[in-house]
């Protein structure tokens, strides 16, 4: 049985860059949440323990900024990769197999909810399903807005030259609520839908190994298989196979 598994043909789902960025964002995001919330909820004892572990409020704030720079660095690297992918590999950034939102996603969502209620079958997902797209866009857009409000709080003297000072209050409010939103989604919904649900318990390995099999593709996103057959390729163009 083990030999059979070894012989099974594998296909590339995530390139080495994507896997690396996923791990870095994971660490950076956890650091941001831990330091940020322990500063915000400083009346709580656990927050004071965390802050004393990091060495005081100033150091915790410093670490928060370091994590922010690391996480936003990932966004910048990702944007550079997108340009490279488009210009050099002539890849498609908006096609049906890409992460670009399409009308099909809304139809998929509707059909998926019908499936939850036992009134329909699973929709035929493409390479990236609608919840994967939501995960991606939530992080991509969220990082930019969080980055902007975060910069307001990092350099209040600079920004208050151009806008009234109470915009810093607004930035605080937006930064807080968006942080709560992203933590509530990313630390609960993302692990559940991507790793912990019974279909793929205990975890989705392809984001760390990059490899997937025909069986998995047919099960999780069968729409991709058809396009792969049509283009007769093992992986999307410009894939770094390591």
């Amino acid at each position, binding site marked *: 049985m083990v030999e059979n598994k070894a012989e099974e043909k594998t296909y590339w789902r995530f390139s080495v860059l994507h896997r690396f960025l996923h791990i870095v964002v994971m660490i950076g995001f956890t650091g941001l949440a831990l330091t940020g919330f322990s500063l915000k909820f400083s*009346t709580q004892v656990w927050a004071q323990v965390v802050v004393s572990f990091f060495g005081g409020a100033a150091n915790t704030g410093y670490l928060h900024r370091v994590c922010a720079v690391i996480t936003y660095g990932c966004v910048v690297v990702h944007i550079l990769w997108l340009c490279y992918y488009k210009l050099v590999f002539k890849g498609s950034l908006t096609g049906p197999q890409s992460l670009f939102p399409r009308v099909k996603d809304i139809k998929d969502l509707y059909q998926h909810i019908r499936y939850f*209620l036992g009134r329909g079958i699973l929709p035929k997902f493409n390479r990236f399903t609608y919840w994967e797209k939501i995960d991606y866009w939530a992080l991509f857009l969220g990082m930019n807005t969080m980055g902007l409000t975060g910069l307001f709080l990092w350099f209040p003297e600079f920004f208050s030259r151009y806008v009234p*000072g109470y915009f810093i209050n*607004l930035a605080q409010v937006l930064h807080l609520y968006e942080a709560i*939103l992203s933590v509530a989604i990313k630390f609960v919904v993302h692990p559940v839908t991507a790793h912990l649900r019974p*279909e793929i318990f205990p975890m989705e390995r392809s984001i760390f190994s990059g490899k997937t099999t025909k069986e998995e593709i047919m099960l999780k996103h069968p729409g991709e298989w058809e396009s792969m057959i049509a283009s007769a390729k093992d992986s999307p163009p410009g894939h770094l196979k390591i």
Partner: protein
Amino acid sequence: MFCWKYLAKQFLMRIDFSVISIGLKTWFLKEIMVIKKSYAPCKKFLVKMIISLACLSVLSLTSFHGAIKKGWAITERNPPSSWFINMNLFSRSAHSNLTCEVCHGTMKEDDKTHPDPKDPDFLRLEAKRIYDYSHCKTCHLQSYDRYLLGEHAKALKKEKESPNMKEGVKSEKRNAPTCGDCHSAHYEKSHLSKVKIGRKMTEICGSCHRAQKVTYLEDYHGKTAVHLGHEASAYCTDCHGAHNCISLKEKKTALLICQRCHPKAQERFAEFVIHPTIENGAKETKDNIEKRKKVAVIKTVSVIMFCLVVLIVSFFYGHSLLWLLRELHEKLRKH
């Protein structure tokens, strides 16, 4: 017909809860067996690791807890000044090297007599309101002069000039503070750390300025200074001054204060709202109207954000929960 009741009924009918609970048990037992088998070779090592890690974390947590109890406990408040002295506390205070006469010796010169026990008001007057705190000036000259320039002294003057105020009588409304209202002459200890003084002053200032205390502690300055003990952050007196308690409603003075820590701050920096609160009886001055507008904007934005967060989170949680139930159902049906 799209009917919620029908949908819910259909959904509940399709889930057999007894099957789920029994199935979950067998499923978890199976998973645990798989995990047990795969970790059997290094079982002893793993057990030792887990036990040592648990011991370490408990130890470190208890040590942290000790640090919290020592440094972060809210400082005890001194007993209020009254007609009687607790000598145990007095002998440990900053003024313990002074004799009574140093402060109370001039009673006869001030034309004051010892309170008469037969007087119906005996011991009912507030000691703090009767004592002439200008005696403090002999040692604390700078502080006293600063106090005379500040808002508290102005309020005291107004209070004394008003016709219905009797000396020593507790007024129904708040009293304008003298030295004794903030400092306990008999029990105040000296050489406290900056953080301890800061925590104490937050309590003392906050006993009258309640809304300001709450909003200060919600602000990043208050959080880091009081709760996290970050000395470089600002306590009450770092902005408002220790004895010349000044109002910072005027933007020009406020900016000067801000610039002591934020040297690059420009004019509009001072529009930042630290105490987003306005007292109910406040006059409708230009500053107050402007501030009220700002507070309204901030509150509206936070309410909108809160509703958005609740909506989005509840949608995604519901979505994931439905999905989990469905997949559990499918998985158990296959067994």
